[in-house]
């Protein structure tokens, strides 16, 4: 589903060159719940941003469902994100002036293949799934951190994306809320065979992942299933 080939990202700050990603090569299969783990500065968020079309690599390529995303125009990338991808951010990133329902419906409202009835039904259905249907008219500031993150997940899921990306979604949550959010990801993965790529630096999160890729200094240092890491070749 996702082929990553020799991905490099180099930041230049004056004469200093920082290799945020240094030759990452990976395959991600449909239905996987993949965890990208590593210490701070290891390149995991940079990799997620490349996969989510939020940033461009210095070299290498990413092919998603047969599409080389490096060849897409700016507008095509926007449409690719809208139709194919879902994104959950560390700080929830909800639009503060929109209600829960409006936030969740927003990406669906832009899709040309959805009518109003379908948008309403899909949004209501996903809100029921995350247990916040009753709070659909509330503003984000009226919700707890955990609830806001669940709304963020609902927003990412409303368009039924091919791949769901999550960038340290539990970083701002207490352990109980984190567990609720992770359970939700697990449920989504199991119920809808949803491909999920999630960045985390919390070691206990690995119990939820099918597969874990560990990064260090921009390189894959291990890649394995069910916590059984194999050293990268």
């Amino acid at each position: 589903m996702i082929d990553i080939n020799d991905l490099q990202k180099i930041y230049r700050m004056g004469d200093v060159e920082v290799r945020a990603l240094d030759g990452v090569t990976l395959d991600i299969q449909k239905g996987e719940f993949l965890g990208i783990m590593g210490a701070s500065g290891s390149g995991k968020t940079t990799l997620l941003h490349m996969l989510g079309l939020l940033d461009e690599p210095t070299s290498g390529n990413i092919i998603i469902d047969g599409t080389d995303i490096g060849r897409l125009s700016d507008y095509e990338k926007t449409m690719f994100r809208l139709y194919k991808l879902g994104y959950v951010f560390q700080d929830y990133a909800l639009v503060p002036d929109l209600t829960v329902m409006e936030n969740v419906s927003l990406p669906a409202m832009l899709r040309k293949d959805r009518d109003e009835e379908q948008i309403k039904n899909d949004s209501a259905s996903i809100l029921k799934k995350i247990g916040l249907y009753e709070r659909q008219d509330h503003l984000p500031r009226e919700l707890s951190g955990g609830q806001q993150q669940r709304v963020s997940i609902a927003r990412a899921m409303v368009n039924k994306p091919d791949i769901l990306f999550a960038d340290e979604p539990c970083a701002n949550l207490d352990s109980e809320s984190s567990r609720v959010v992770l359970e939700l990801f697990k449920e989504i993965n199991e119920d809808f065979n949803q491909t999920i790529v999630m960045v985390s630096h919390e070691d206990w999160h690995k119990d939820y992942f099918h597969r874990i890729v560990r990064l260090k200094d921009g390189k894959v240092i291990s890649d394995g299933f069910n916590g059984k890491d194999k050293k990268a070749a």
Partner: protein
Amino acid sequence: MGKKELKVAFLLALRSLQRGSRSSVILTILIIGMCFTNMVFLPGLFNGIGQSITKQIVDYETGNVMVNPKTGEQYVTDLDALLDRINSMPGVERATPHYTKAATVKYRDRVLGVSVRAIKPGDEKFVSPLYTKMVSGSYLGEDDTGEVIIGKPIAGDPTIKRADENQASLGGVRVGDSITLEYGGIVREYRVKGIYYTGWYSADTTMYTTWSDMEQVEGKALDKAEYITVKIKPGYSEKFIKNELQQYGVSEDVQTMSDLLEKSMGRALQSFAIINAVSLFVGVIITTVVLFIVITIKTLNSRKQIGILKAIGVDKEVIMHNFGLQVIILAILGIAFGVIMTFLLSIYMAYNPVVTPEWSATLYLTPMDYVTNCLILFLASVVAGYVPAYQVSREDIQSAMRA
């Protein structure tokens, strides 16, 4: 951009205004409203001054059309025949003659130099509203002799000392008092029949007597006039009457009020137009800059959110129109506020005009003035809003999200 994108942009714009900083929204609307008022107030006031002066000149000086002596002559002669001819023309409401003589007026210890204007009171009523401006006593009768009506500034106020007066007066003449007028050796006693106040300096510093009385002063029938003023009937243009008079063989110097105004006020009107243009330009610049700053701050504060919206698949056009529509909504509300404020101001000024010794003015704005200024301000607002919106919507996702 499709209907769906526009709908999302409108939803984002509306919610941002509804649920964002209320004080910022109110202040922006106030600023736009004030800018609108600033743009229309000065031109409106100048228009009002122009209208007021024009009306007073028509009412007390020229009428709609003025017939002056031929070039090189001092008086319009063969007056009765000329008046008959003019009054018989279609479109002429009434023509009335004026004859002015310089005099010295004495009242108790006060002595003043004045102009005494002879009029035919009955005809004058058709041409000038002077008869409606009596503040005490009454207007002249057709055959009155030995009676005058005088302007309030000449009559004076007995409570004000001579040293404190803005202009010399008779120190408090009242209706029924006797005054003495001396016309170059001819001395006559007059009774003050009425005191008027028009607000037009030239009229208020003149004394009026009847044509019959002036004939006694001159000692003969007056078949000449210094000038004739003509009032036209509704539906006729001044130019039409002027042409008609000339075609009917009136060989005197015939000029419309517009001709005279152009000669006497042309430069002043040009100056007003320049000031109006400067005022409009400054108003538009202020509005544009203020809105540009407001929207720039708003977009800069929303950079992270803009990055997020782009990340979830919202196109940059939608983001740009979101901010653009916010400005459009703010501009519409601000302009509406400005229109209401200006309208209320014009009502207030209708009851409390700006009064000077020479004229009084209200705010004079035509519907076209409102429409033009609304459109100019709206366009300025849209430009001021869309420029920062365009800039920020082009920013790459990473930079925006890091903000």
